[in-house]
């Protein structure tokens, strides 16, 4: 048996005439944290809802820890922790009552129930709000209640739809650390549109667009597709900017140089490499020989956000085209 804990093959979901997910296949191994990226409406949540067993796929199969989600949903769901988008919870219950309900459903009794609940509470730092109704809690606490619910039974498969949405930077950091700590013996999928999160917690990222996978690799692999991959940015003081401009262009392997004026006459030069070759060595060589006023030197691995923009189509774009087309049409109509 392979060590893939999540196996997805040919997953399709159609809503009436709209195809939300158009044939997605991938697998996630134990120890992997898969970041699921894509613009809004790309099919991220729909895919996660199908994996969790809420929506039924139009076609395709999902296997979690060897259990087919369609044929044996209860067995698959008992191996899975799921945090739905927006972390819904029964607002009139307190976190203690809510987690007690979840533990009861998942078959924890007596002492085991208490220890499962207290461990989930400790890991999500919910102690101070345990006896307040969930509907009165802040967004951050609500999210953590949902998180506690998902990890209560220490599931081998964890599916989380935007786990850090609405959290402050400290809470985000805490949640990411929690995910990283649990990652070793689990297969985890998180969806997000915060790209820094992918670098922070994911060992692998999949970008989907219009229901299809458009990129799949480690965050570093994906970033390497960016034109910023191995580029170098230097900030040089006003006295030497002109000299630097001439010499930087001639550095071996440089394809082009972009300039941007910063405050007080400082110039920022970004050197893009030819064929993605690393430039930093040549640039430091040059800088070592000159006595320029260098205030900053940055070598980049690549920019994930740029890759993201390149391989996804914003849902705003086609709408904008339609609108302008509509305007023209109405102008014509008025002219007549």
């Amino acid at each position, binding site marked *: 048996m392979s060590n893939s804990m999540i196996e997805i093959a040919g997953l399709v*979901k159609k*809503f009436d005439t709209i195809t939300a997910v158009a044939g997605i296949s991938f697998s996630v191994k134990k120890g992997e944290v898969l970041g699921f990226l894509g613009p809004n409406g790309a099919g991220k949540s729909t895919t996660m*809802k199908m994996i*969790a*067993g*809420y*929506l*039924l796929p139009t076609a395709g199969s999902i296997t979690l820890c060897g259990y087919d989600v369609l044929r044996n*949903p*209860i*067995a698959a*769901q*008992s191996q*899975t922790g*799921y945090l*739905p988008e*927006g972390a*819904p*919870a*029964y*607002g*009139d*219950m307190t976190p203690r*009552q809510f987690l007690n*309900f*979840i533990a*009861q*459903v*998942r*078959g924890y009794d007596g002492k085991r129930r208490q220890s499962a609940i207290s461990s989930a509470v400790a890991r999500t730092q919910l102690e101070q709000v345990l006896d307040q*109704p969930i509907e009165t809690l802040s967004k951050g606490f609500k999210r953590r209640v949902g998180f506690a*619910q998902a990890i209560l039974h220490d599931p081998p498969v964890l599916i989380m739809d935007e786990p850090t949405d609405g959290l402050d930077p400290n809470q985000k950091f805490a949640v990411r650390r929690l995910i990283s700590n649990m990652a070793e013996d689990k297969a985890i999928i998180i969806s997000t549109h915060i790209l820094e999160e992918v670098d922070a917690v994911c060992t692998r990222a999949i970008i989907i667009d219009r229901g299809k996978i458009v990129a799949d690799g480690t965050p570093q692999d994906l970033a390497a597709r960016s034109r910023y991959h191995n580029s170098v940015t230097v900030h040089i003081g006003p006295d030497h900017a002109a000299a630097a401009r001439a010499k930087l262009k001639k550095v071996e392997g440089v394809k082009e140089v972009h300039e941007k004026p910063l405050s007080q006459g400082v110039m920022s030069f970004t050197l893009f490499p030819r064929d993605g070759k690393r430039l930093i060595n040549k640039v430091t060589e040059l800088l070592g020989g000159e006595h320029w006023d260098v205030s900053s030197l940055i070598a980049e691995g690549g920019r994930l956000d740029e890759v993201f923009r390149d391989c996804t189509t914003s849902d705003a774009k086609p709408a904008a085209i339609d609108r302008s087309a509509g305007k023209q049409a109405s102008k014509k109509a008025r002219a007549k």
Partner: protein
Amino acid sequence: MREMKAVFQREFQGYFVTPLAYVFIVVFLFSTGIFTFYVGGFFELGRAELQAFFVFHPWLYLFLIPAIAMRLWAEERKTGTLELLLTLPIPIWAAVVGKYLAAWAFAGMALALTFPIWLTVNVLGNPDNGVIVASYVGSLLMAGGYLAIGSAISATTSNQVVAFVVSVVVCFLFMVSGLPLVLDFFSGWAPQFLIDTIASLSFLTHFDAVRKGVIDMRDLVFFAALISFWLFVNIVLVDARRAG
């Protein structure tokens, strides 16, 4: 069973964390009192029986039971907890039956709280307590029938008001299907067996039989079949949500 018990407990407790339970119980007890003593003329009848009390139950339930049932699924859909509930390892039938039983237990509790009237009639005279017990059983079964309808209809919408109004209408049709109001519409063109079938679906007919102290197997089977049918519809409706 374990999952069903968990759902049942959560749902039952849910009635008491909001004012709903208390408002419902107060309104229920007040209105049974008013109908029994003022409309039903309990004292004027001068008989040691509770017919004046039970005869209004179908009409009270018509509005009060959909008020209990409307939140069962509509609220879960509205707040998104349905997604949570259906992704927990709970079979759909267990979720449906657990929720239904919680609502039924709550209705039963409200009904049980009318016991002072039973004490009163025993203090004042010597009623046939067998008939009274039969009437309570019949009333509880009828509440179960209304609830099963209300629960299934609640699963079709995320709006509790819509669930309430539609439930009242459907319950009303089931209640009066034995009366000329409904039967006149069919008589003249529909075959007799259809008219008989429609008439036999009436809550009033079956409840009246039980209320008179005769617990007939046919009436029990009627309510059991009605509840099973609507719970089955409920399961199908909840499952249909998953197709998207």
